[in-house]
């Protein structure tokens, strides 16, 4: 209970604090320099870029724990991408003691560092945390971009670590980042034939886990709003599956008016103004959209097949969904105004749970073929299909905010079978299990926080 309150307090302060954060650029150059050693993520990296990341320099008022933890969280983020490898701190020949002391580049090039991050942390007289950092190209002996400074509440240090990680990632890869983000998912406990499912939320790196408050009945597949601190999910509170909104500031649940039949598989449009979902009436499941302002409901498909798992394109003009109208499950695209659906998947097996990339270029999906499940991606026209994973049961892809990483859940077979969340790069590399306190399924990734 205590934890809950503390977390809410943190959330609240985060919401307020970030209007107070100063992002200060300082440094010698007037213009943002083009990164000298920018890497191309597309082509696949043969050798991860080597980064030296000493503990942040302790300035006035800061403690050792925070100066170490800042660099640890950043290091964990960067290493987790598979694109970077931080050099162990025990190998360093140099311990930076002051933020403005000129960098001794030789000490870093000799341990083969490509990039050096020098950071410092202190606590101001008003009690706020001051964190600053500079990013150095070791071989060129030049700063990459300009230094940055953050002023914030002390308890927000983790988010500052994520923001610094984001800046480093962005400057070194030229790609938009994803570390300052959260994941909402379903926590599962209990035996396979009597699972207790609860909605839960955590930071992208697994920290700050908490359960969301909701009635004990079954819950399914929470999805973030792209614009508000809100999720949409399917719950069985009335005994039937129904779609609900939850405000994450206070866990308040609201319904979407009087939906007839059963409703599930909701997702927001990128502007947060509409949702698209499946509604089952008379045993038949079709796709509908609901305007969240007016609660006006619009039927988009009218087909005796099962039409479900709809997902908006980032521009809101189209919807990709799955349907078994042609026999097995396949992927189709339809205008968000309705009309004729165009089939885009033609491969062997069944295709399900399509999700449009936030970049707009790819669609991630679940494929079932010859008794195996895969997570895959294809272009919007259905071409260039690539399967990234294979197992007894891989399901439910979710995009990182930058469209570079996919989370999904993998369920093991048998009596003791249970789901865990994994992430994988769209290159098909760097698959890893996300640590969670319980079994976990149905992940959904938030947009970058503000």
């Amino acid at each position, binding site marked *: 209970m205590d934890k809950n309150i503390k977390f809410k307090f943190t959330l609240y302060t985060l919401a307020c604090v970030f209007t107070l954060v100063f992002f200060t650029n300082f440094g010698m150059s007037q213009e943002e320099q083009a990164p000298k050693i920018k890497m191309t993520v597309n082509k696949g990296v043969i050798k991860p870029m080597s980064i030296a990341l000493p503990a942040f320099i302790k300035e006035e008022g800061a403690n050792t724990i925070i100066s170490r933890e800042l660099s640890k969280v950043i290091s964990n983020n960067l290493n987790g991408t598979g694109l970077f490898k931080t050099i162990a701190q025990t190998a360093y020949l140099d311990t930076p003691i002051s933020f403005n002391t000129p960098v001794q580049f030789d000490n870093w090039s000799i341990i083969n560092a490509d990039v050096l991050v020098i950071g410092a942390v202190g606590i101001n007289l008003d009690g706020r945390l001051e964190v600053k950092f500079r990013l150095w190209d070791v071989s060129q002996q030049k700063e990459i971009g300009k230094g940055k400074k953050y002023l914030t509440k002390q308890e927000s240090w983790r988010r500052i670590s994520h923001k610094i990680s984001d800046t480093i990632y962005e400057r070194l890869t030229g790609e938009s980042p994803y570390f300052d983000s959260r994941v909402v998912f379903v926590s599962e406990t209990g*035996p*396979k*034939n*009597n*699972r207790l*499912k609860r909605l839960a939320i955590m930071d992208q790196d697994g920290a700050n886990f908490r359960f969301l408050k909701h*009635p*004990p*009945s*079954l819950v*399914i*597949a929470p999805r973030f709003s792209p614009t508000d601190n809100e999720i949409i999910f399917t719950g*069985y*509170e*009335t*005994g*039937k*599956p129904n779609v609900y909104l939850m405000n994450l500031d206070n866990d308040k649940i609201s319904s979407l008016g009087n939906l007839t039949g*059963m409703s*599930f*598989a909701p997702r927001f449009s990128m502007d947060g103004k509409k949702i698209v979902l*499946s509604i*089952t009436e*008379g*045993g*038949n*499941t079709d796709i509908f959209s609901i305007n969240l302002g007016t609660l006006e409901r619009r039927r988009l498909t009218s087909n005796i097949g*099962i039409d*479900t*798992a709809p997902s908006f394109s980032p521009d809101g003009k189209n919807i990709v969904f*799955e349907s*078994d109208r042609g026999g*097995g*499950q396949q992927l189709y695209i339809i205008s968000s105004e309705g009309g004729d659906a165009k089939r885009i998947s033609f491969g062997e097996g069944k295709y*399900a*749970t399509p999700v449009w990339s936030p970049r707009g270029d790819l669609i991630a999906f*679940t494929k*079932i073929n010859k*008794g195996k499940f895969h997570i895959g991606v294809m272009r919007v026209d259905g071409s260039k299909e690539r399967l990234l994973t294979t197992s*007894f*049961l891989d*399901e*439910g892809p979710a995009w990182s905010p930058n469209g570079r990483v996919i989370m999904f859940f993998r*369920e093991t*077979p*048998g*009596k003791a*079978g249970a789901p865990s969340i994994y992430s994988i790069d769209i290159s098909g590399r760097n698959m890893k299990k996300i640590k969670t306190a319980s079994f976990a399924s*149905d992940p959904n990734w938030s947009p970058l926080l503000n």
Partner: protein
Amino acid sequence: MQKIIFGVLVSMLLFSCENNGFKTNDQIGSEQISQTDLDYFKNLVGDTILFTVDKSDLRPDALEVLNSQLQWLEDKKFLPITIQGHADEQGTREYNLALGARRANAVKNYFLAKGIEPGRINIVTYGKERPLRVCSNEECWSKNRRAVTVVGKQLSE
């Protein structure tokens, strides 16, 4: 035969768990149904029918069970009926929800065709959320692709 009875007992157990979160209404009007009658319905009439992979049509073995259910229901017009539709784990979550709805609806339509009043029947889908059997092979999957007729309880709206 032992297996079947065991399966039925497991399904009873499971059903009692499933309804924990529900607001239920065991009584409609003044007439009541005894636990003995309900047990008889579950165990001897049979409350569960099975389906083929990805299908929702009623197989001959299913029709036989449904006909027995109808016979038992004949003199119990006061009883509300809920049909639960389920799927096995070999499908995606959303599709299985829709498939469970299709299966439950197939039973509902059969009951309506046989003269059950529309107002008495509710359908609900659980997709793959509530498996009866937990092994990961056809032996269990075939038992999980099911529709269960639940009498005497109705969903609160």
